[in-house]
């Protein structure tokens, strides 16, 4: 509006638009530092190129290889070039001076020595009246084996020229590729540099050259010598024997830390035993309530309730599936254990939701609390269950309630995360509107934040249910009951039939719960 169109701007046909070479060349010169004329020409060719194959060849890049890319600060090219070149150099080294078939030769030598030993014993046997013919036979066989080894060694040695040539050709190809594509890659870095000048390497820096050469000198000779003359490093006596093959680990450090941790856990378990026991008691109470409902109630009542729930929540098709699934469970005698499994999952989910949603709301409102909780939630989800089963046994003992606690560790993160996500996703302007009409914090939470975050919270609850279901098998390892126990028993005796039947029972339980819950959340009929 004020000066949108400058008066000197003219309308020009697209074909007549000229590149502003002055500005471009000045910026390329600034970027490359040294040898600007060459790069101005090369980048111009890169800019004019239409096909995929480069029209420029950078001799310096081809001759110097990784040293060129390091000096120019193109670290991606440096590392990929270095790795490929190491492959080539190893081949060249093996072909030029490596003992090809060296181990075969050593084998032949020892075989010949043993053949000689057998001959000696044959002579001894002949003088002592023993079975000389047997030792003669053994010596002959050993000699034949040695000859075969020598043959193999010779054949391997004869391939040295081929290996050397392959390595050389590979190296030349790598360098040619670098020569052809160097300017294109460098031009790409130039584009990055234009956008982020502070974060992109430009020009020639001595520091980069020194770093590149140092890396090259450290990595290439060590690797090539290790592959071509394996005995050389050990024979130098600079490092302990075999230091290049295996990291010299300190076993005593491992065992002392492990002992220390064990002592700490034992102390904690006995110090806080009161607290741990009351947690177990609380979990057991929740589990008992659910178990009484699901197992204690006559089975026709429970079945009817589940089928009606499936029908109301997810429609007739799911209800029919649920009837079939429950018939399977009941006919094969899985009914009681299945209900125990459902009670286990239910108790875990109830506790997850009870603590997870308030925590999620808190984390959603306080960025600092969220930043603090994030690594803990990551740990809860990524730590393999087998790892925290051990401290759980130490603190809470074995059986169903500790199993539920393990399930909670694994199952709680999704509901926390998705609640926090939902709370943070509530549009700022709607919250502002509620505030502008005088809403206090509680009203804001009840009328705006929770209702708007509800879809996300429900997705979190559903995720948590599924996670708890998958965990409920693993807790049979620490004495948890239900279907997991049947499967663990089948596993221990490698009983294929019972294992498969139990597996299907868990599958049907999972699908039934998932369908009903999803149907209820989405409100679909």
């Amino acid at each position, binding site marked *: *509006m*004020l000066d949108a169109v400058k008066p000197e701007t003219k309308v020009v046909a697209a074909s007549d638009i000229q590149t502003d070479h002055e500005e471009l060349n000045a910026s390329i010169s600034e970027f490359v530092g040294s040898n600007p004329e060459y790069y101005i020409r090369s980048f111009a060719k890169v800019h004019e190129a239409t096909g995929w194959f480069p029209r420029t060849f950078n001799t310096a890049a081809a001759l110097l290889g990784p040293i060129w890319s390091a000096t120019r600060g193109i670290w991606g090219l440096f590392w990929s070039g270095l790795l490929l070149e190491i492959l080539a150099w190893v081949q060249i080294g093996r072909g030029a001076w490596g003992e090809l078939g060296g181990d075969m030769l050593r084998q032949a030598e020892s075989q010949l020595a043993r053949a000689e030993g057998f001959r000696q014993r044959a002579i001894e046997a002949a003088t002592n009246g023993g079975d000389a013919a047997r030792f003669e036979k053994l010596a002959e066989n050993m000699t034949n084996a040695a000859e075969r080894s020598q043959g193999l060694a010779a054949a391997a040695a004869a391939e040295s020229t081929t290996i050397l040539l392959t390595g050389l050709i590979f190296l030349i190809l790598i360098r040619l590729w670098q020569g052809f594509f160097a300017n294109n890659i460098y031009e790409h870095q130039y584009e990055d540099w234009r956008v982020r000048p502070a974060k992109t390497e430009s020009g020639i820096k001595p520091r980069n050259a020194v770093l590149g050469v140092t890396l090259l000198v450290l990595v290439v000779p060590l690797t090539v010598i290790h592959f071509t003359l394996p005995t050389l490093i050990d024979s130098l006596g600079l490092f302990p024997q075999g230091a290049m093959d295996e990291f010299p680990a300190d076993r005593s450090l491992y065992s002392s830390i492990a002992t220390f941790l064990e002592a700490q856990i034992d102390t904690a378990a006995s110090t806080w035993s009161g607290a741990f026991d009351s947690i177990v008691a609380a979990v057991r109470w929740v589990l008992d309530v659910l178990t009484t409902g699901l197992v204690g109630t006559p089975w026709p009542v429970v079945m009817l309730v589940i089928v009606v729930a499936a029908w109301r929540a997810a429609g007739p098709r799911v209800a029919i599936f649920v009837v079939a699934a429950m018939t399977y469970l009941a006919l094969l005698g899985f009914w009681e254990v299945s209900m125990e499994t459902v009670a286990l999952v239910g108790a875990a989910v109830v506790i997850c939701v009870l603590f997870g949603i308030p925590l999620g709301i808190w984390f959603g409102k306080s960025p600092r609390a969220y930043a603090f909780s994030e690594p803990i939630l990551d740990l809860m989800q990524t730590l393999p269950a087998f790892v925290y089963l051990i401290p759980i046994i130490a603190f809470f003992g074995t059986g169903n309630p500790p199993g539920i606690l393990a399930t909670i560790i694994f199952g709680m993160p999704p509901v926390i995360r998705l609640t926090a996500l939902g709370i943070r996703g509530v*549009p700022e*302007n*709607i919250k*502002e*509107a*509620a*505030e*502008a*009409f*005088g*809403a*206090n914090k509680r*009203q804001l939470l009840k*009328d*705006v934040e929770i*209702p*708007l975050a*509800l879809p996300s919270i429900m997705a979190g609850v559903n995720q948590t249910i599924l996670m708890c279901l998958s965990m409920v098998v693993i807790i049979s390892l620490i004495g948890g009951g239900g279907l997991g126990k049947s499967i663990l028993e089948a596993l221990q005796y490698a009983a294929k039939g019972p294992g498969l039947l139990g597996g299907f029972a868990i599958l049907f339980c999972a699908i039934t719960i998932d369908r009903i819950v999803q149907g209820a959340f989405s409100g679909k009929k």
Partner: protein
Amino acid sequence: MSETVVELRNVWKVFGQRSDEAMKAIHARGLTKPEVLEEFQCVVGVQDATFSVNRGEIFCIMGLSGSGKSTLVRHINRLIEPTAGEIEVLGQNVNAMTASELRRMRAEQIGMVFQHMALLPHKSVRDNVAYPLEIRQIPKSRRWAISDHALGLVNLTGYKDRLPRELSGGMQQRVGIARALAADPEVLLMDEPFSALDPLIRLQLQDQFKALVAQLKKTTLFITHDLDEAIRIGDRIAIMKDGVVVQIGTPHEIVANPVDDYVREFAQGISKLKLVQAHNIMTSLAEFDGSTDGAKRARTDDDLDHLISLSVDTNLPIVIQNDGQDVGVISKSRLLKGIQGSAE
């Protein structure tokens, strides 16, 4: 009429972690905005705003995006805390209010309408309109009656049981207006309410809104980035630029006497036909030496548009009356100059 309802005195808003230090430095050393940004990494959002709004007035705050008009208006219900200065609403000092007093004032005395409607998507239109009353814990029967009445004011009676997303943008904004009116507040804050709507709907809503406010006698602060809208709606207009209120005046004053190039630039594109009134361009009867026999009559507050339609089929001047008395004359040449904007 001239009772002051909203008053701002030397209100400053400085954004940033060190805003208090920056504010002290501004008072002590008179730093400019770039200096404040450089020295304290603080942004000056509102700079020394002073104005008052009278009862029943529509006070427009006009400025481009980023000029601080939304920030300024959010000081009135303290959605934003001022860094310095005083704000009075209906004689109460807003800065000194406790949290519960503030919530009470927001709920009972100030209604607000937002650019992006900000309706609650899970509540019906009726419950959205009634939400300010729900916050005040007014029983449901009363809430529903009031919200039905408010929806009637914006011609949305048939839509009370719909969800907001089932309504068009213009209708949603009318729900927003109904919600602001539901608590029967003294003051309305309108934050670019019609900016997101298409031009035809906008014109319609502007007219409806102006009529509604005149009927309900609400004191209104109306934010807009469109001077046309400000002139259509506003009794007075404040023009903001980079956090500073550069000019306050009636639409005619803004267009006729812009204080600087910035305001002039805006005012250039404005049609004067509805803005310039007969008394602005008339000459007194004594100065007029021609004949007024058979001349048509008009009133002092008739606009140019009306005067033009009176004079299209005659060469006689128009006689201007006030309360039935002849007070002045506008000749045809005077009228033409008036349209051009050079008669004053």
